[in-house]
């Protein structure tokens, strides 16, 4: 912390004496702040996930209603830093390639455990939609017989995740754990989240839902895997980490990475895929955290993470602040009006997302907002969508002002023409 503050002071001095050299140092310092915030955000994600792991172990050792509630609380807390980290996803290939392991969504939860009859059966898109690994120690997948007699992290990660090449086969990560803690939300557009009974983890005669021991094994394997995946990502942003090295190697490319992450998360991902689609389809299954009814927080912390990266200031889960020379400083030194515009837009989006959060916390839950004809809910959600779209335009202006260009991940054929023949 102190070092960062000093660096900023030195930079201010440097600017006065050697503008050209200072201009270059500016960018490097901005990228250092960016990488520091990434490291802190993933470290916070790890710490809170470890608390979730302890709560899960307590639940499995002594199943009770209180222990289940405690694990659910820990899951909700763990989402706070993680959702802020999503701004690092697009633009950083190391993060984007890894992200599906921890936050893939939406999922065909029938792959994992029992589901309600209304869920349906296998679909055109997914033959494994009701595979139910917890109830079946052996099954056929893509024509192969799978021995699932012991549920391990390796089984989840190597065999079940994206089984059959279908993205909806999500076997690992936050949302798989969410389903195991809450169960399906069968309230449709009504109030209330999933209501999995704690006895789904009870041993012996009190077990409900069948296969309680295997369900516990699955929950433990998924939680352990989340920890090891997060540990790996924290190390990628450490002093010698590959993600830090890549993001800070080239000043202009690094700035492009920051802006690509901000714009892609704002527009295509959060405003589009996660928010607008749900409103247009009136479908509570389109909620990002549909089991726990935590979607209002998912969106809000996405918005906050985008703002933090621009302002170069992240408040950690223990209240300490990681801050340093920021993209905002850099833009302000070139075009103060543009920086003010960008800051205003980010603040307005966070406020609009905050309105969804406050309404949801006061009882107007996100799935109620999505109901057909619910104009107030639609207006709340579209307020967030419009704020995110609006800030994307300013992000594009920042991109142009910095003379850089965005680099969007995800097109194999464009990046590597030979890939399609592999």
């Amino acid at each position, binding site marked *: 912390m102190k070092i960062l503050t000093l660096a900023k002071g030195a930079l201010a001095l440097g600017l006065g004496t050697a503008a050209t050299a200072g201009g270059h140092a500016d960018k490097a310092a901005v990228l250092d702040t960016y990488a520091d915030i990434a490291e802190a955000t993933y470290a916070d994600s790890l710490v809170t996930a470890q608390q979730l792991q302890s709560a899960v172990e307590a639940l499995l050792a002594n199943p009770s209603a209180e222990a289940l509630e405690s694990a659910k609380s820990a899951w909700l807390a763990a989402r706070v830093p993680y959702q802020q980290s999503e701004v690092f996803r697009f633009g950083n290939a190391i993060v984007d390639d890894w992200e599906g392991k921890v936050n893939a969504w939406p999922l065909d939860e029938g792959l994992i455990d029992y589901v309600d009859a209304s869920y349906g059966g296998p679909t055109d898109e997914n033959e494994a939609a009701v595979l139910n690994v917890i109830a079946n120690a052996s099954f056929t997948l893509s024509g192969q017989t799978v021995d699932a007699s012991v549920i391990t992290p390796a089984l989840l990660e190597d065999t079940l995740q994206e089984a059959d*090449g279908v993205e909806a086969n999500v076997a690992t990560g936050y949302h798989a754990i969410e389903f195991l803690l809450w169960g399906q939300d069968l309230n449709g557009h009504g109030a209330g989240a999933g209501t999995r009974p704690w006895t789904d983890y009870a041993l012996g005669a009190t077990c409900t839902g069948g296969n309680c021991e295997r369900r516990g094994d699955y929950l433990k394997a998924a939680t352990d895997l989340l920890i090891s995946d997060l540990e790996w990502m924290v190390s990628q942003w450490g002093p010698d980490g590959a993600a830090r090295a890549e993001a800070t190697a080239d000043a202009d490319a690094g700035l492009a990475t920051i802006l690509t992450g901000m*714009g892609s998360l704002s527009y295509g991902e959060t405003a*589009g895929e996660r928010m607008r689609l749900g409103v*247009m389809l009136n479908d509570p299954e389109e909620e990002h955290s549909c089991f726990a009814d935590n979607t209002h927080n998912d969106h809000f912390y996405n918005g906050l993470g985008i703002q933090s990266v621009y302002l170069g200031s992240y408040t950690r889960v223990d209240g300490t602040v990681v801050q340093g020379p920021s993209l905002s400083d850099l833009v302000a030194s070139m075009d103060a009006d543009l920086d003010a515009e960008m800051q205003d837009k980010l603040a307005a989006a966070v406020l609009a997302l905050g309105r969804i959060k406050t309404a949801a916390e006061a009882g107007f839950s996100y799935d109620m907002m999505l109901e*057909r004809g619910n104009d107030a809910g639609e207006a709340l959600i579209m307020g967030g969508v419009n704020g995110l779209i609006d800030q994307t335009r300013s992000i594009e202006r920042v991109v142009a002002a910095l003379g850089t260009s965005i680099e*969007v991940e*995800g097109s194999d054929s464009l990046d590597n023409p030979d890939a*399609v023949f592999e």
Partner: protein
Amino acid sequence: MRGALFAVALAWLAAPVLGDDLDLKSIVQEHIIDGYDDLAHHASWLALHAEANCDPTYPPLIAQFHLAFDQWVNVSHLRFGPSEVDDRAFALAFWPDPRSATPKALSALMRNQDESVLTPEAFKDVSVAARGFYALEHLLFDPAFAPKSAPDYHCALTRAISREILANAIALRDDWRESYGALLVTTENDTYRTSTEAARQLFTALSAGLEFTSQTRLGRPMGTFEHPRPNRAEARRSGRSLRHVILSLQATRDLAALISNENEQLDRAFKVAIERAIALDDPVFAGVATPQGRFEVEVLQQSIDAIRDILADEVGPSLGIAAGFNSMDGD
């Protein structure tokens, strides 16, 4: 006016070959407004035919469905401004549909004999998955949604969807004609502060349109080599999958010529891709399930990606612009 000229001159001095040189007026009139005019025209005939006879076996209705859908594909890359107001573009064309929302939403309406189809006002609140061309395609072509079990309801729904397509097409055309076109042409407003911003918007639409054709129209049915997914082909029920690729390439070729000042290298790349698409004798990409058929679709996809490379590496830099964000930047 003087201030405006001065600002343009300054921008021109800063970087000599810029998007400022684009003839925005021609692009807006000839490419965009004329395209939406055609859509509104054919959508009105579609609604009239559906009113006259809503039976899926009525040939004029089917013919007009194809004509109107063609016009939509011709403007489907213009995903900004009026198309994003009130979710019009989604309401006209909800696809891809990885969670099968369209058949689910249509089944729910039919099962419940949902009365929202009776008035345009109520129908606007129905899920976008049950509205627009792709929903209408299910009603007209998919045996699972044949009229026989509930002919009256099927007819009411067919008419409601056709009417709503027309309403959205008219709203789009009018917005472009009456207000949004001027924003893009004159610039120096809150939406487009400079002509460079207007150029960037058009360039983004062009790039995103080609990305959609390559990655979604072709990429979804291709799946992976081990798991080809012919059932994911766009509008396969009406046999239109390849037709959409060809139409969209032709439409984006027009826009590309206007944007690039008729760049010959770019136009040749379009020509190659369009010829390959026309030569591909596989209207719904059923061939992706065989190695040879898949190979041919891959070659077509590569030729589209070659256009994208020229745009990103040559045309964009020569205009001093790069594509902005588009809705496919997420997952």
